[in-house]
């Protein structure tokens, strides 16, 4: 691993990235107490300006993710894993610092977003493609692909509210994975449907993960992380504790867990 990678190989670069967000419905006593949460990022007053409750979800992150990197994101609940993924996805903007992302980013964060249960499966796939920003040609390809992948048969023309929960998950999963990104962000791999379909779903995600030039996968499953990732990124309370080879990262996390307990 090179410490000063040449810029062409860098997919994602973070320099001194901080993310603070205000909490508006916190009450006055909560606001003045300056709590430090046992779970979650750091809660405190924002620096300067009016006092208000802010959550510091990410603190001074510096890291490079290179093309070809498969990064496993780990840490306890509230470490900032999902927040970091949302920053990388462009949904949240860092409060300070610099973030450079090179390539087309897609997330599996948005599973189920935009699903309207009164619409048919087919119509939901069309809207899903538009939400993912696919153009007309891609949408047609995806439509066929998702219809065959979901194995919904004639149900594809039925309103989604008539679906069993397994069918619904299949549809949502099919839409969310219909992307073809350079950089793929995944927040936990979800259990999908029955055993046979789970294998199929896994094959689909695996294909996505291997095709993407960079992957960031947040998970609590060490086996999963070892299988798919070559690097590990270990966060605690929004601070980077370790970033390096996956086995070392898992070891660092395990040490932290035992010491903490």
């Amino acid at each position, binding site marked *: 691993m090179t410490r000063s990678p040449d810029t062409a190989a860098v997919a994602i670069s973070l320099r001194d990235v901080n993310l603070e*967000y205000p909490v508006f419905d916190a009450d006055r006593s909560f606001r003045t107490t300056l709590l430090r949460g046992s779970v979650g990022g750091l809660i405190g007053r924002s620096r300067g300006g009016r006092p208000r409750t802010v959550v510091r979800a990410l603190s001074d992150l510096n890291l490079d993710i290179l093309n070809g990197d498969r990064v496993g994101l780990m840490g306890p609940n509230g470490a900032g894993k999902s927040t970091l993924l*949302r920053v990388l*996805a462009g949904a949240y903007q860092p409060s300070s610092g610099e973030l450079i992302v090179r390539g087309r980013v897609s*997330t599996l964060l948005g599973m189920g977003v935009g699903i309207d249960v009164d619409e048919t499966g087919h119509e939901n796939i069309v*809207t899903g493609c538009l939400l*993912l920003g696919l153009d007309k040609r891609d949408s047609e390809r995806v439509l066929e692909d998702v219809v065959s992948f979901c194995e919904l048969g004639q149900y594809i023309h039925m309103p989604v509210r008539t679906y069993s929960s397994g069918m619904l998950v299949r549809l949502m999963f099919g839409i969310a994975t219909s992307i073809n990104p350079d950089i793929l962000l995944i927040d936990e791999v979800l259990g999908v449907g029955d055993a046979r379909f789970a294998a199929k779903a896994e094959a689909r995600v695996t294909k996505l993960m291997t095709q993407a030039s960079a992957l960031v996968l947040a998970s609590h499953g060490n086996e999963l992380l070892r299988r798919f990732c070559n690097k590990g990124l270990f966060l605690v309370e929004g601070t980077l504790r370790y970033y390096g080879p996956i086995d070392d990262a898992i070891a660092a996390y395990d040490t932290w867990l035992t010491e903490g307990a």
Partner: protein
Amino acid sequence: MQLSATQDLAVSLRTHWRLWLNLGIRDTRGRYRRTVLGPFWTVLSNAVMIVSLGLVYSILWKLPVRELLPYFCAGYITWTMLTTVVSESAVAFIGADPIIKSLNLPYLVHILRVIWRNLILFAHSLVVYAAVMIYFRLWPGSSLLLLPPALLLLSLNFLWISLVVAIVCTRFRDVIQVVASVLQVLFFVTPIFWPVERLEGIRMATFVLADANFVYHLVDVVRGPLIGEAPHALTWIYLIVSAILGNVFALAFFERHRRHLAFWL
């Protein structure tokens, strides 16, 4: 990779136009799903409202129904569009919470969706207007040609009003309620179900309630072409100026708060 306000607008219009067109149509379908009359519920409820109020007020104002009803009808359906655009804009971002938090889409998609679905709804309401005109054997004449530019100008004004309302209401949820009450007051003080001629001779009231009243011009620019009276030059100028200034202000406001919006949800 974060968009500026103007980039957000440009990307929403150029890259994602199919998305908000699709969502707007889907919203419209959803509104009538599993109803027997479908879109004609809007038509029917509007028709009942317009005919009954039109009749009552023609007696109160001592005006022939033939004169008041088309005026009231055209004004009322335009007002309805305005009021739903504004009140739905209040929750435009709040309702799109999951989309905003997990996908990197421009925010103005959600605003354009609201405006677009209400233009569709307005088109449905035109059926009531057409029925009234046919019943009274009236024809608006060439002024009807002014309807498309009037709707365009109205939509351009909607753009900035919606954007400002949506941003403020996302941060301060109380404003959603304020917006609802303000709209109600505006309905009664603006010449919609009473003819503007009623103000004749009262100079102060004419100025406050009509000439200077932004809402009056918003309504009249569409109502005029529908009832065969080309809108006044003042109306066009007022709305063109407000569209320009309003959008400049709204985009600057949006630019300032765009980065915070996701955290306000």
